């Protein structure tokens, strides 16, 4: 049999397969190069970027929970200048699209970041994080209010002709409403979900485990929620969707595609197995071969209700 076609395209970003790595879980790619071939991935999404460098939260910042983990990194990052100077040179040599995830404390900051990234040729697309629940000013207000989300996306849209992916928060009553607001503001694609706000407590110390008290839940525990949201949004909104949340293997990834995702992002699973993203691409191909599917795109939204 001919090799199946794994390639997908999202808002003009051509990817050799649907397997991307999720922001904040894959560093700037480099950290994982001993463990996999970065040029086998669909795309790499870099750690959330802000204008100025950010210190992030005090420690402890992470804790394991049943089937998942909480993180309160607090969006620590090197800031856009250092990113362009120190991280882009490595990424430039890859044959894989680089998508830059970023966030601002205000609409102006979002717009300014977009304007600057628009000029960086190595940036294939932007992923706007309107959803990080860790930091008071990390965008939480934008991520749960459709009007605010609309304004941010609109402002970014005016600054760039690169594809805009908006990353949605699950901490909302109605994810479809959020998705629609982004679509109206002319986003090119949606990625979902970001982490769910949770908390862990140390009984003996009578204290929260995380210095930040609450953190974002990620990992397999989250998968049913993420699948549901992808499915809901894909039925209501025409934009291409990138499915994220608890994916640890090719089966999980393909389930998200059935639910309506054109591509997926691997997050926490990178910590468990630093070579997992490449392995998922390989296993995905095996699955297609075994089931006589010639093109992975056939599966997108192919869920039968």
């Amino acid at each position, binding site marked *: 049999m001919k090799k199946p076609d794994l390639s997908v395209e999202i808002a003009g970003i051509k990817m050799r397969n649907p397997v991307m790595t999720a922001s*904040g879980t894959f560093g700037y790619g480099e*950290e994982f190069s*001993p463990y996999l071939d970065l040029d086998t991935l669909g795309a790499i999404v870099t750690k959330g970027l802000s204008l100025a460098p950010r210190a992030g939260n005090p420690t402890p910042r992470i804790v394991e929970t049943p089937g998942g983990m909480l993180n309160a990194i607090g969006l*620590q990052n090197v800031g856009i200048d250092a990113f362009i100077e120190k991280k882009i040179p490595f990424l430039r040599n890859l044959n894989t699209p680089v998508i830059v995830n970023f966030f601002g404390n205000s609409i102006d900051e979002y717009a300014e970041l977009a304007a600057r990234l628009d000029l960086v040729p190595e940036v294939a697309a932007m992923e706007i994080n309107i959803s990080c629940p860790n930091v008071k000013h990390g965008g939480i207000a934008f991520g749960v209010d459709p009007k605010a989300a609309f304004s941010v996306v609109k402002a970014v849209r005016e600054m760039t002709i690169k594809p805009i992916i908006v990353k949605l928060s699950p901490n909302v009553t109605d994810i479809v409403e959020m998705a629609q607001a982004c679509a109206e503001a002319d986003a090119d694609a949606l990625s979902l979900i970001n982490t769910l706000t949770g908390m862990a407590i140390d009984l003996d110390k009578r204290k929260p485990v995380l210095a930040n008290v609450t953190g974002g839940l990620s990992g397999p525990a989250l998968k049913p929620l993420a699948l549901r949201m992808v499915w809901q949004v894909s039925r209501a909104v025409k934009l291409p969707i990138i499915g994220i949340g608890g994916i640890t293997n090719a089966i999980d990834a393909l389930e998200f595609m059935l639910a309506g995702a054109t591509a997926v992002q691997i997050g926490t699973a990178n*910590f468990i197995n630093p070579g997992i993203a490449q392995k998922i691409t390989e296993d995905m191909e095996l699955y297609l071969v075994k089931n006589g599917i010639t093109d992975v795109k056939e599966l997108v939204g192919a869920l039968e209700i």
Partner: protein
Amino acid sequence: MRHFKSMVVLNEEVSPGYARIRLTAPRVIMRAKPGQFVMIRVSEGIDPLLRRPFGIYDLGSFMPEYPDAPLQDYLEVLYKVVGKGTRILSSLHHGDYLDILAPLGTGFTQGNPEEEKILVGGGVGLAPLYFLAKQLVKKSKVKVFIGGRRKEDILSVTEFERLGIDTYVATDDGTLGAMGLVTEVMESNLANGDAKRSIFACGPLPMLKSVAGISERWGVSCQVSLEANMACGVGACLGCVTKGRNHSEQTPDYRCVCKDGPVFDSREIMWE
């Protein structure tokens, strides 16, 4: 940095609640430096989800039991059973498999061989110091100070003595060695000498902080191996950071314990 499947060769209790596990490893493990660590996945499923970090306690090679086999390299980890992951680890037998990332992080800088090497460890913090001592004794005079709560928490004394190293022990309850803090024993020992020395420490944070203070007072250089909650072990998640000396909100100076450490010069760290 390699990702490999490893077979358990032996796994034995060394003191109540502490065990030593020997794990096959690829040849390249022999280049690991004392102070580097490994991330072990103790379950194939999601419980527990994340890998667990452990210092390298020893390296070696053995002759497999079948004819004409090449030497097989291994690494050893000395661990304390504290929770789910280490409990699973302690239930493994010869022939079981584990998934491992190793070696990770930076190791100790061994420095000038003329210096006297002062090793200070608390509890399972001894693990990387034993590996370090094995290398240091070849060229330097080495002393080791071992602390713990009770005598059960004092590990590897025989192993250190076998290396011909002066070994000092202190326990909180006096059940072995001096009664009191190992740092006090070390400091009074420092006072009785004036050789050029450097300190290598691993153990609980309060101990490290105290060692850092002592080294500062005596003007002795000091490296500490830190612990932190880790998710990735490779510098990607930023979960394991510790504050560098010059850290402030405005000019953040966070270091990854997993990648920039776990070993740091004690003066590079902001001790809070």
